[in-house]
């Protein structure tokens, strides 16, 4: 197990280099001179001399690969430069917003599990029943509904009409409710169906027939045998989704004025605050990779066929 993790981490090196390269070259896409943008944001008229000075200052006058290595060197020391807009270190800016985004994502993930676990299991157990049909319809709507619309509809209903929940901002648990539901909805729909499918696969398998043939109680059949196997593919997918959900907060944060990384990212795009956007992309990719790694390790832990090697 220890060796597996070490090998897996070693295998990540090229991926991380690739991610860093993309993050670095992203800034090259900027159609105008970043130095000029920097001066404009600093309220300084961009004279040629000033631009040249800033270019030297930001290291933009050196060859590209030197710039990359230099940037990578600094990035490894967690120095991502200063925000054009606030002159604060970029990382500090992002870290200030990170807890809010993390809180929202975790709350949504909990909601997804809370909804899709029972719903998926019930839909599979009562296949083609009323609940299954209902969940099918809801799952389809959930996967198709734009969350930037759903958010407003929920806000209209619960905050404006019923006056149950606060409209905007972050603070109490009540503030968290609507953004978390909005973010969770499409994932809950997807996972309900996913769990239903894998439950049905499991229910139809030979080993479940054998548990019944041995006269096990239905509770044991479902709990120990059906569910355990049905959850395995769900775990994998859920790890992937965690990364996507974290990224997907952009829109939800924007609707509910949730002061997280997504809000920061969008305002940085409008401010042309390139270092912040770059760092945001880099950190999100790192989290994404870390989630996938965590899933791989968890999977190894859960599935003895992989953990103990061999297998047929």
């Amino acid at each position, binding site marked *: 197990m220890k060796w597996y993790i070490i090998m897996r981490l070693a295998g990540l090196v090229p991926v991380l280099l690739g991610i860093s390269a993309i993050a670095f070259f992203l800034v090259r896409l900027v159609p105008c001179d970043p130095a000029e943008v920097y001066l404009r944001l600093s309220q300084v008229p961009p004279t040629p001399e000033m631009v040249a000075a800033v270019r030297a200052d930001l290291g933009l006058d050196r060859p590209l690969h030197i710039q990359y290595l230099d940037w990578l060197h600094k990035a490894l020391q967690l120095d991502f430069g200063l925000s054009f807009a606030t002159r604060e270190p970029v990382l500090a800016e992002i870290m200030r917003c990170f807890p809010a985004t993390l809180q929202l994502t975790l709350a949504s993930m909990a909601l997804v599990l809370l909804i899709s676990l029972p719903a998926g299991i019930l839909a599979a157990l009562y296949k*083609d029943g009323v609940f299954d049909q209902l969940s099918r319809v809801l799952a389809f709507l959930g996967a198709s509904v734009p969350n930037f619309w759903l958010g407003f509809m929920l806000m209209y209903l619960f905050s404006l009409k019923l006056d149950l929940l606060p409209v905007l901002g972050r603070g109490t648990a009540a503030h968290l409710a609507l953004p978390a539901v909005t973010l969770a909805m499409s994932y809950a729909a997807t996972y309900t169906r996913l769990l239903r499918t894998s439950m049905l696969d499991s229910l139809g*398998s*030979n*080993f*479940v*027939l*054998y*548990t*019944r*043939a*041995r*006269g*096990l*109680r*239905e509770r*044991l059949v479902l709990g*120990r*045998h059906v569910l*355990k*196997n049905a959850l*395995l593919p769900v775990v994998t997918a859920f790890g992937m989704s965690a990364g996507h959900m974290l990224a997907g907060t952009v829109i939800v944060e924007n609707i509910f004025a949730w002061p997280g990384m997504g809000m920061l990212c969008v305002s940085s795009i409008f401010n042309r605050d390139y270092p912040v956007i770059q760092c945001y992309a880099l950190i999100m990719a790192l989290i994404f990779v870390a989630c996938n790694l965590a899933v791989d390790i968890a999977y190894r832990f*859960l*599935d*003895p*066929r992989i953990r*103990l090697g*061999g*297998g*047929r």
Partner: protein
Amino acid sequence: MENKPLLKVDNLRVSINVPGGVVRALNGVSFQINAGKVLGLVGESGCGKTVTCLSLMGLMKGQGIEVTGKVELNGKDLLSLSPREMRTLRGREMAIILQNPMNAFNPLVTVGRHFTETIKSHLPASEKEARQTAIGYLRRAGLPNPGRIMDQYPFQLSGGMLQRAMIAIAMSMSPPVLLADEPTTSLDATLRLQILGQIAILIKEHNTGVLLVSHDLGVIARLADEVAVMYCGYIVEMATAVELFNSPRHPYTRALMASRPGLKKKRINPIGGQPPSLINLDKTCPFFERCPGTERACLNYEMEPAIFSNGHLVRCAIYGTGRRKALKGLA
């Protein structure tokens, strides 16, 4: 004791509604199994052998599946039992060995857990007691180092070992009736004899009545006291093993025997063609298209049995329709 059958199956019918019509998987299957005796059930794949086992266990359930007839175990009518009563009976009074041990075990659960959960489902035993019992039975099933096997996962054992474990699990409850559904099919030829020997020893010890299902006449010949030949959901021939192997009467049984590889044979004669689709069968004998000696009567044959004086049962139009006396001369 010998005279009173343990398991009595009478006119068992299974039909499955599918989009294209009705699959008649079993069409009036009747047989009985006595204590300590082995009934061999032989036939091609898809003829209804597994369906027979599953419906005896009350596991033929699902949309559009209908099971009728009578299954009596020690005088209890199984088809009228509640699901709960049926559950406690499965594994305890009637155990099963499934055909593919490799996928019958849950890959995420240890072999030992499979064993102890079965014991604890039927007996008030602690985990520790169940474990001790399990280890004992694994050893008796001829598995080396049973303590270690208990903690291993199914994928770590070979097919033969899993099959032995499955036999051990089945026998641990000393069930009066054992259903063995192709117990050796997925195994190597060398292992087959060992496993069959193991089953033979265990049934002698426990005086178990066995339904031994196989497509392999060799396996049947080795263990069975009585043999039933199944085709398209009908028992087309049934007799004691000696009688059946010495004087097979149904053309299908003869064809099955001719298709077996053997040392003295120059060549194998496979049965030509395929069994008909079981959807919406008509009155023609289902073996009609593959039968070497057909008559006009075969086109309108309701599969009534002809029973010879020595109890030999045949469902074939050639032997007339159920009139016992007319057949005496032929026998």
